[in-house]
């Protein structure tokens, strides 16, 4: 079976700090990492490969330094790595990004053969949109299953599998045919501590670069100019100020006061009629 994982290299959002004076983010020195959700997608693909045979390809759109993310994916057990890198992609929104990745994936399929399961993380921790994966799935016109927390009953013969996905109210089990597109939650698996030969192979293998010249990507669908959404402004939310201490003679009195203060909020949530 062939598994294709879409990954993104992101700044480690946990290390990004806000500069309230300038209203910008402090990104100096913040390392670039594989989007944490995507790592679980890679892990899932590698596990399926180890169980059913086949190979795992990984593709990442980004600047040349995103090669590090692909190398890391290979050290987790991916077999083939593709860096989609071209200036024409600069400023792409989710629609333009899903176009470019879809077109790149078609090229990868040409080179590596048809894909059974596409994978991506449920969202990226920098943009938090959760839109690129669904966008690519739609362009391939394959079933999309988001927020996956478990993969079961994979049948490579019948080309079916079952997925458990997270809902607000619980979970649901979905059966689908392959090819299909999964976006995954962190709970899907625990990342393995990869064997040393994976790391050595990753260090020895080079990443293939895809761009507008060696794929059929059309520039008129890429980049800032061809993205339907544009950023009007970016700003940091106001710094949180110290609120109010609720004081009183008795605990009951304090809780009563508190309740009165939060009752309007509870009402908007429909907790009180």
């Amino acid at each position: 079976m062939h598994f294709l994982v879409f990954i993104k290299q992101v700044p480690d959002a946990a290390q990004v700090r806000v500069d309230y004076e300038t209203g910008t983010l402090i990104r100096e020195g913040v390392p670039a990492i594989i989007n944490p959700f995507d790592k679980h997608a890679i892990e899932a693909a590698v596990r399926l490969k180890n169980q059913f045979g086949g190979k795992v390809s990984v593709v990442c759109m980004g600047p040349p330094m995103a090669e590090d993310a692909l190398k890391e994916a290979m050290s987790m057990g991916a077999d083939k790595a593709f860096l989609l890198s071209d200036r024409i992609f600069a400023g792409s929104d989710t629609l333009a990004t899903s176009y470019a990745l879809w077109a790149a994936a078609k090229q990868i399929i040409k080179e590596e053969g048809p894909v059974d399961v596409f994978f991506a993380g449920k969202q990226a921790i920098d943009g938090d949109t959760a839109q690129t994966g669904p966008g690519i799935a739609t362009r391939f016109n394959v079933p999309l299953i988001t927020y996956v927390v478990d993969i079961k009953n994979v049948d490579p013969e019948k080309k079916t599998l079952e997925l458990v996905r997270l809902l607000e109210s619980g979970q649901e089990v979905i059966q689908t045919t392959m090819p299909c597109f999964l976006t995954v939650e962190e709970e899907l698996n625990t990342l393995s501590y990869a064997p040393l030969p994976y790391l050595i192979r990753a260090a020895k293998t080079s990443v293939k670069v895809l761009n507008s010249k060696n794929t059929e990507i059309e520039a008129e669908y890429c980049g800032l100019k061809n993205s339907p959404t544009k950023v009007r402004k970016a700003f940091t939310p106001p710094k949180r100020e110290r609120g109010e201490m609720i004081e009183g003679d008795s605990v009951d009195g304090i809780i009563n006061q508190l309740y009165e203060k939060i009752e309007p909020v509870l009402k908007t949530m429909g907790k009180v009629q």
Partner: protein
Amino acid sequence: MSKKDFDVIVVGAGPAGMAAAYVLAKAGVDVIVIERGKFPGSKNVMGGIFYRKPMDDLIPEFYKEAPIERHIVEQRMWLMDDVSHFSMGIKTQKHNSEPYNCFSVLRAQFDKWFSKKVVEAGALLINETVVTEPIVENGKVVGVRTDRPQGDLYADCVIAADGVQSFLAKSLGLRKKITPNKVALGVKEIIGLSEEQVNDRFGIKDSKEGVTIEITGPFLKGMEGMAWMYTNKNSVSIGIGVIIDDLINHNMNPNDLLESLKNHPSVLPLIEGGETREYLAHVIPEGGYKSVPRMYADGFMVAGDAAMLVDSVHREGSNLAVESGKLAAKTYLEARESGDFSEKTLSRYQEKLEETYVLQDLRYYKNLPELLEEKRYLLTEYPQFLIDAMTEIYTVDGVPKPEKFRKIKGELKSRFGYIGLAKDLYTIWRKLR
């Protein structure tokens, strides 16, 4: 030889390991470097500055492309008590032109760059892997065990550049247990300031020039240690290193110590208003020459901090690391000629180091660690006397100068006694021989 994956395994991608790997890769040796960090430099902290010479021999004019912060044109030395500091130092334009003398660098960035050069030279770099122990067969090191599944690797020779903790050298019995009186903890902060602020506050012309300040004296309350400030492009590194035994005995929390340093009236104006960007800690081997172990075994060499190669008097470590890595690699290349990686052949490595400034410098100060351990007052009372004397001399208060000098002489006599003074001078002279 039963198994062999590589010619050489280098453990640790710090300056020592990468210097070794660079030389080996350039010579066409099949070398793998194993680093436990996310990337080279991610675990590394430097309390010192990076000297040009050994690195320049390796990669000529490296400073033109490496991510260095500033080249150092002025080095100040402060003796400091709680309210004063007595300053000495050297600022020279001789250090303000290429090829420069030394640089301030940020290790996370510099080491990453260095590792790229090493990979370009042909070495294989594996990150995120801990080497747990050497594999020894028939008394000979034949490889290493890592903490990864299927993690054994075999080679002709292992170069351990795994830092001050060096579990490898220790497990081979080369290194004794390090006692807390032979090792210092350094804590450091990177404090962000604008380039202009750094230039103005340190009195430098532009953001290429840099200043270092090294501080010792009675403010350390008798603990053996040293504080430092280095100018980076748009930040200042400020840190303090103290012998761990002293921290324990003085019930001292290193962060409190660093905070009091930052708020010292002599220090504060230089960093005031800056925003702390990072907080770091690392230990520094301070044992000097006497703690340097045997640096070789069958199929094995130790380099850098792992071999305790730190000159604590001159705050040099990374250049000794680079030099030792280079020499370990050269020793391997010689051994390869004969195909003999035995202890005997590799012993040439230590001899080579003895022939260079690395061990010669350390040997020169070999008795100093004990001296300072014995006579702690050398670090407090003499500097305090000097500070007091300078304060006296520069205080204009109507007292005639001859009387001031008499007073200072009197102080000298009452604080130390002429006999004590003579003894101390004699001891220092003798210990430094």
